């Protein structure tokens, strides 16, 4: 008989091996799935995971996709470490995009990059404001932030829909629900000549560095960690619980807002109804897949971006269903949760126990 037995100490190896194992299991299940659907599994996996990156154009698109996921996930990791369950990166991202667009559209003919700075700051503030609602409710009324942030996601989505169908709709856009294209001044500079990768990716990398510094070097980061691991110990040591709650929600909301405003000022260039294909939700998976560690999250967001691209490419080349992307994301998360059991438990073979007196 095979039994799960608790380990005396969590396995340090499994902490890092578990995401790799989850990735492998996702691949294997993916291959079985493709076969069942009647595709050649090798061709399908190749289309899904390797073909998207075969030219510099592809790599550029890859980084474009990774940027918003990375920005959201790195912010979420800060909150999750402090045991604050911000599920609202999607809404905070949308608010960043919405408010950033509203500001950008005030300067239709500007060439000045000062406009861009203003737009970015407004996007960040919008994300912070949206997370701030949850922070206020949590610190004042002890409202569960999981519920409030999820609900705020839908409100943000509807506000965005309203804006593109109403006040921000391009008057010369033949009634399409889109804003006018942003001026040059309100557009992010690109990093490469060919391709759309923009300085948003650079900003994301800077965010990774800053967060790494915060969580591993600063006393503030230590206080957040204590609060996350053992709230009563934080209270005993006198750490300011409410201030820390506000802080982590401001950081994650601000970074999600930045992700949103970078999308509209970067690759999209205008406000459209579907700014995000669920980056804010994918970021939750990425944060955990990356073990809430900045470097892990960088790697995980690149993987998640690849799944997005592979899903699209497979749709075009093999006419697979669009749901495949979500399916891969879901599998990755569930396999990760399953593999994480091995961090605290191990498999052992058990023999039936025999007492010395035996059967009498």
């Amino acid at each position, binding site marked *: 008989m095979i039994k799960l037995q608790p380990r005396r*100490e969590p396995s340090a190896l499994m902490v890092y091996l578990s995401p790799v194992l989850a990735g492998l299991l996702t691949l294997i299940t993916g291959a079985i799935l493709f076969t069942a659907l009647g595709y050649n599994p090798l061709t399908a996996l190749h289309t899904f995971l390797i073909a998207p990156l075969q030219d510099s154009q592809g790599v550029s698109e890859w980084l474009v996709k990774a940027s918003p996921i990375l920005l959201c996930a790195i912010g979420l990791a800060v909150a999750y470490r402090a045991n604050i369950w911000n599920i609202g990166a999607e809404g905070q991202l949308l608010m960043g995009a919405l408010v950033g667009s509203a500001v950008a559209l005030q300067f239709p003919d500007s060439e000045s990059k000062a406009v861009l700075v203003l737009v970015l700051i407004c996007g960040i503030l919008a994300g912070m404001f949206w997370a701030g609602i949850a922070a206020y409710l949590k610190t004042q009324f002890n409202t569960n932030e999981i519920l409030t942030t999820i609900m705020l996601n839908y409100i943000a989505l509807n506000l965005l829909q309203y804006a593109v169908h109403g006040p921000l709709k391009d008057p010369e856009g033949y009634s399409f629900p889109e804003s006018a294209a942003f001026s040059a001044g309100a557009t992010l500079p690109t990093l490469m000549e060919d391709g759309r990768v923009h300085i948003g990716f650079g900003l994301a990398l800077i965010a990774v560095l800053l967060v790494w510094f915060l969580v591993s070097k600063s*006393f503030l980061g*230590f206080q957040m960690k*204590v609060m996350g691991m*053992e709230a009563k110990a934080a209270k005993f*040591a*006198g750490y300011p619980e409410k201030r820390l709650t506000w802080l982590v929600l401001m950081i994650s909301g601000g970074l999600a807002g930045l992700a949103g405003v970078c999308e509209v000022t970067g690759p999209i260039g205008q406000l459209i109804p579907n700014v995000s294909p669920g980056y804010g939700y994918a970021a939750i998976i990425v944060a955990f897949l990356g073990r809430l560690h900045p470097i892990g999250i960088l790697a995980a967001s690149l993987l998640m971006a690849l799944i997005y691209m592979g899903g699209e490419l497979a749709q075009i080349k093999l006419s697979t269903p669009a749901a495949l992307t979500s399916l891969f994301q879901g599998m990755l998360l569930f396999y990760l949760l399953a593999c994480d059991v091995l961090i605290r438990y191990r498999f052992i073979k058990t023999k039936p126990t025999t*007492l*010395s007196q035996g059967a009498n």
Partner: protein
Amino acid sequence: MTATTARLELQGIRKQYPGTLANDDIHLSILPGEIHALLGENGAGKSTLMKIIYGVVKPDTGAMIWEGNPIQIRDPAQARSLGIGMVFQHFSLFETLTVSENIALALGDQAGDIKTLPERISTISKRYGMALEPHRPVHSLSIGERQRVEIVRCLVQDIKLLILDEPTSVLTPQEVKTLFVTLRQLASEGCSILFISHKLYEVKELCHKATILRGGRVSGECTPADESTLSMAKMMVGDETPVSNTYEKKQGGEVFLTLHQLNQISHDPFGTSLKNISLQVRSGEIVGIAGVAGNGQEELLAALSGETLTPTADSIRFPTGAVGSLNPTERRQLGMAFVPEDRLGRGAVPDMTLTENGLLTGFLHGLVKGGMVLSGKTKHFAEQIIQDYKVKTPNAQAHAASLSGGNLQKFIIGREILQNPQLLVASHPTWGVDIGAATAIHQALIQLRDQGAAILVISEDTDELFQISDRIGAIFDGQLSPFKPTAQATIDEVGQWMAGVFNTEEAAA
């Protein structure tokens, strides 16, 4: 032959848990009508052994012989049907149900006719001198009364062996006496009792035989009446540990901590409101507050630490002024240090390393500069605690949860003392730690006192308070008793205070 057949005999019981051998080759024999003590420090394997007897845990090897017949106990229901009853240290009672409902629930079919159960409960409780009203809801009972519910639950059945796990740890000295009367009566009627404890004088007073466990093995058997508490203690802890010390009593100097008419309404429906608490603690003295758990200790500690702020700042004062409205960090900056009652979860974060746990409250003492953690100094601080307070651990990178209770407690006390506090508030400083660690902790507290710090100790262990405090009093229902120099106080007097008998005394005086 029948007269000498053991009620229960254990032969070669062995139980291996991952990483620890909890029981190894245990032999134990209890006669009918015998009160048998199972002595040992925390972690010696007492709990595992009684769980094996009660059918909660299955042994790896070994035999159990019940009244001459080899048996295997599958589960507690079977144990109960044999006539084995057990009173756990932590009661398993539903607070919203009545006494008889609780008993009916716990026993299931074995409770017999539900309609006559309340009557049988009354009869039994009267017969054994344990007043108990079957229709009262459990939430209205004191801790001592709740324990009676658990004991009566065992007696409702035809009981042959009663197992009691540290039954006296939640009782006042007077309640302990009443319990002992009941137990002696039970034994005289032929019931065997397995009495688990680490309080030696109780064992000496009550028990006919004792089996002593150390590190999962039987380290000795004796007749407590023939032994001194010291010789039994030696069997419990081994020869290498100093067992007992008496410390010189001191008077203290200037007043450091003043509590003045502290009133605080508890917002927790199960909490205790503090009523008119006034107390002074001088530099260079240890003041002890005795009391049964749940009489306002937690609320008083939270008010002292700054986790809850007092309604008027002036009700808690340091020499520098009122501190009632200062947060924990601000109070620490004024020289306070604090040892909370829960080691894991408040005093230390279980899954953090000792280095990180040193930083937890040590951050005010040069470990943080410009918002950055100075990793070298933080590590050095933890290593210094480990060295100075002889904390047994592979290194400072070990997780707090991997340390034994005593070692972690030494670490926490060391962390607080190394911050050179002028006032140390300690709650149950040696709760659940072995004698060796307890002695080390007591010595550290005495040393800190002799360096001139004011120390306030709140503990349920009255013996400990008599040993280390210079002045002693008790808390009952959120009120403080009068305080007396320990040398002039008696256990009986403090026991009365713990039971709330001091208001009349004051009125009379």
